């Protein structure tokens, strides 16, 4: 099942979902309390829509998608996929491969394993710093700490329990990897920085927020 969290993405979500559904028919779009036509566009595209009554944040939307999907016991793999069109549908297969071979519990997409991502200098530097910081604080060695494209198996889906509602869920995923001892692996993916995704995406300033979240949250709660 592909989980697509979306907040006010009516412009692009239909196209993104249609492309996905051509390859993977089971797609759930979690509309995070959008004020535009995101939910209608997603339904038109053929996705199952779960709708938050108000905006809760991307982490909360992913958790909702996971819990909705867990209701179906036949689903074995879970993929998170951003709604803004920055991911390529081809990369989903790359992501699923290690899961199918049971070579890991969670597979994360990385922009830095292959050249070709058109990042600006600041963004690249910030992401590099995030990676270094993550390695220092959690001991989890990744090349890309904040990529929306991930795949995981049922064991992870059942125990992930994302609690940070906002954008810091990426750091939370990494903490869970450490705390719960998931086997993790990275695969190269391409992130398309379109004009739209840049406009909608996180500004570099948000790195400051993420840093504080990472420092201030308790190390381990269980």
């Amino acid at each position, binding site marked *: 099942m592909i989980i697509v969290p979306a907040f006010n993405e009516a412009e692009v979500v239909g196209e993104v979902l249609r492309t996905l559904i051509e390859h993977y028919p089971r797609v759930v779009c*979690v509309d995070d309390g959008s004020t535009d036509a995101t939910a209608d566009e997603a339904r038109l595209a053929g996705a*199952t*829509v*779960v*709708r*938050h*009554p*108000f905006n*809760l944040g991307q982490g*909360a939307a992913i*958790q*909702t998608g996971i*819990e*909705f999907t867990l*209701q179906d016991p036949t689903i074995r793999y879970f993929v998170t996929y951003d709604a803004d069109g920055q991911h390529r549908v081809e990369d989903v297969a790359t992501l699923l491969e290690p899961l199918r071979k049971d070579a890991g519990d969670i597979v994360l997409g990385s922009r830095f394993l292959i050249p070709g991502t058109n990042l600006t200098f600041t963004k690249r530097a910030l992401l590099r710093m995030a990676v270094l910081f993550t390695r220092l604080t959690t001991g989890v060695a990744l090349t890309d700490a904040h990529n929306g494209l991930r795949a995981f198996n049922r064991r992870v889906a059942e125990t992930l329990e994302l*609690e940070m*509602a906002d954008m810091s869920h990426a750091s939370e995923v990494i903490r869970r990897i450490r705390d719960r001892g998931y086997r993790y692996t990275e695969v190269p993916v391409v992130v398309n920085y379109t004009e739209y995704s840049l406009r909608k995406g996180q500004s570099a300033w948000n790195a400051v927020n993420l840093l504080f979240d990472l420092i201030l949250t308790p190390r381990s709660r269980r």
Partner: protein
Amino acid sequence: MIIQVVLIAAIVAIALYALQNRHAVRLQAGKKLVLLLFIGAAAVSIIRPGLLTSVAHEVGVGRGTDLLLYLTIVVLVFIIVSTYLRFRDYEARMAKLARRLAIAEANEARSHEEANVRP
């Protein structure tokens, strides 16, 4: 002094309100005691302002008003932190509630669709 009368009236009113309020039943005994202590201290410091100053001297603060200011800041920060924590807790609960609702609605919509497909 008029100010003493006004302040004491205000404290008594607050105390009565806090203790008589139906919510006060849920207040823990400890909190009630702290409240009574606070009211007592406030009343004494209003009736005998000189006392506060001597207590201030005792702990190495120049004036009674300064001591009051420092204590106020400490209490204020405590309130801010505890309110923040409570809010965060409420937010987490709200997220869980909203999630339950969203999933229940989606399930209902899906079962309706399935019912419509069948003749």
